[in-house]
């Protein structure tokens, strides 16, 4: 396994955010799902070595981040997109990525510039290289943040909500890029988009209250909802969760509503059922 987490614990004040978490991640793309506050970002920050845990062990790419020298070596092989990547707004796109490239020890100017151009091309920002960051749209900033995470062709890629702000076309490009990168390295991403998980991830982990409540393939997550997904013509009252779909019918999760017929479950159905709290959603 490329990434091993054992008994990882982290609290902020009295709030326990990671609760003795045990996880293993291998080569490929793994999606982290969970509500806000489930511990996804804290887990990713800890794995990215920007946050020290209170307890437990991590081994990433065979390295122990608790050891200073090994932590530095891990950072050399790590690409990280934080949930809220900051920017120097007065920098150009090229300057900002170049700055991070320097932080990643790309000291030779020519090699560094070549690498900056490469990652900007990967995220389709090459023609914006001279644009000031403050003039970029939200989606472009997100692509810029993604570009810096690709510097140095990292062995481990940690992406916290990477598809936020991307338009559909860019999301498709992102999926193609990440699925290609995931062929020979470990990619760990958190998202609220179950479609991204279904389309991109070989494995999914659902977090709740600082613990992992599901680990498996997206198909297995969808399969967990089999027999609990229904379509009915009337608003159900027995279902744990339901919503009105575009064709005017009701999609219900949980117990079979009157007149309900079984429906093919999706990743989202399995995810919502795992969260296990009755919510009524209508649209």
């Amino acid at each position: 396994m490329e990434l091993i987490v054992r008994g990882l614990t982290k609290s902020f004040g009295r709030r326990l955010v990671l609760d003795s978490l045990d996880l293993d991640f291998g080569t490929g793309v793994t999606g982290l799902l969970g509500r806000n506050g489930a511990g996804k970002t804290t887990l990713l920050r800890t794995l990215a070595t920007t946050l020290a845990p209170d307890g437990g062990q991590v081994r990433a790419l065979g390295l122990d981040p608790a050891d200073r020298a090994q932590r530095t070596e891990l950072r050399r092989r790590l690409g990280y997109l934080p949930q809220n990547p900051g920017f120097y707004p007065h920098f150009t796109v090229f300057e900002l990525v170049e700055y991070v490239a320097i932080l990643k020890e790309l000291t030779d100017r020519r090699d560094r510039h070549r690498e900056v151009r490469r990652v900007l091309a990967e995220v389709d920002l090459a023609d914006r290289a001279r644009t000031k960051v403050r003039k970029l749209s939200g989606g472009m900033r997100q692509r810029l943040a993604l570009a810096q995470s690709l510097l140095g062709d990292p062995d481990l890629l940690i992406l916290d909500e990477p598809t936020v702000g991307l338009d559909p076309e860019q999301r498709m490009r992102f999926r193609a890029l990440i699925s290609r990168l995931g062929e020979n390295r470990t990619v760990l991403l958190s998202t609220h988009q179950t479609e991204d998980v279904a389309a991109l991830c070989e494995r999914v982990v659902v977090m709740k209250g600082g613990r992992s409540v599901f680990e498996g393939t997206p198909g297995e997550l969808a399969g967990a909802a089999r027999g609990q997904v229904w379509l009915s013509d009337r608003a159900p009252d027995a279902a744990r969760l339901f919503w009105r779909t575009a064709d005017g019918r009701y999609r219900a999760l949980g117990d079979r509503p009157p007149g309900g017929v079984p429906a093919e479950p999706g990743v989202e159905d399995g995810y919502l059922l795992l969260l296990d709290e009755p919510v009524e959603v209508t649209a």
Partner: protein
Amino acid sequence: MNGQWHLPAELMEHYVTGHLEPAQVMSVESHLAGCARCRAAVPYSVEWLDTSWAGIEDVVDRPRPRPLARLLRRAGVPEHVAVFLAATPALARGWLVAIASTLAFAVGAGQLAARHPGLEPYAMLPFLAVAPVLPLAGVALAYGRHVDPVYELQAATPMAGVRSLLLRAVAVLTTAVVLTGLAAPLLPGPPGLAAAWLLPALALTVAMLALSTWVSPPISASVFGAGWVCAVVGGEQLAFSLEAQIGYALAALILIPLVYLRRARFDPGEPVWN
């Protein structure tokens, strides 16, 4: 152009080996531009071509370095370090203007006091009180979660922690010392006294870095900055006596090894593993 004519082998060889006059080179290249057969006959190295294109691309696309980076390059700082330091928030134009304004105010206050009967003994106080605090504040604002917008990105790189902090701290300290040093000769007092801020500045900055291994740099700087101003205002010239200067030097000498020993605590990923 005569489509039937092609470059003779001897001319081609001279061209490839660089033994033609410029006018002949232009003539040959003019022909090559329109003759696919001769272009295909020109031997070339793919590696050389890639390197050449990369070089051209680099020259064309290379961004103009920021003014501060250019200045640092002229001072002999390595190129990548100059680019890194030019991003330091505490070296931004606004910060430099703030330092210059503060110093101008302190010097102006000193000059006014020197001309006012009864206030002459206090003419140096505004400057001596302010001068050691400026590098302190600059270092506090050079690196950290609350002062650097890209801190979270930096924190996951090999340069995170003490390397970034100390590089920036030295740059900020140097800048503040140079600006303050330029202002010192404008003071009304004796030159020796005007230099009395240097050792306190060093001691306060080192002490602030040492405390920053427990609390955040802005908090640490606030503690020592406020303490210094209180000491100067309360103790008047005592803070600049010879004994005090020796004390500052000793404090710096003692605290530098402490900062070194605790340097890992500047790293956000430095764990407190159970």
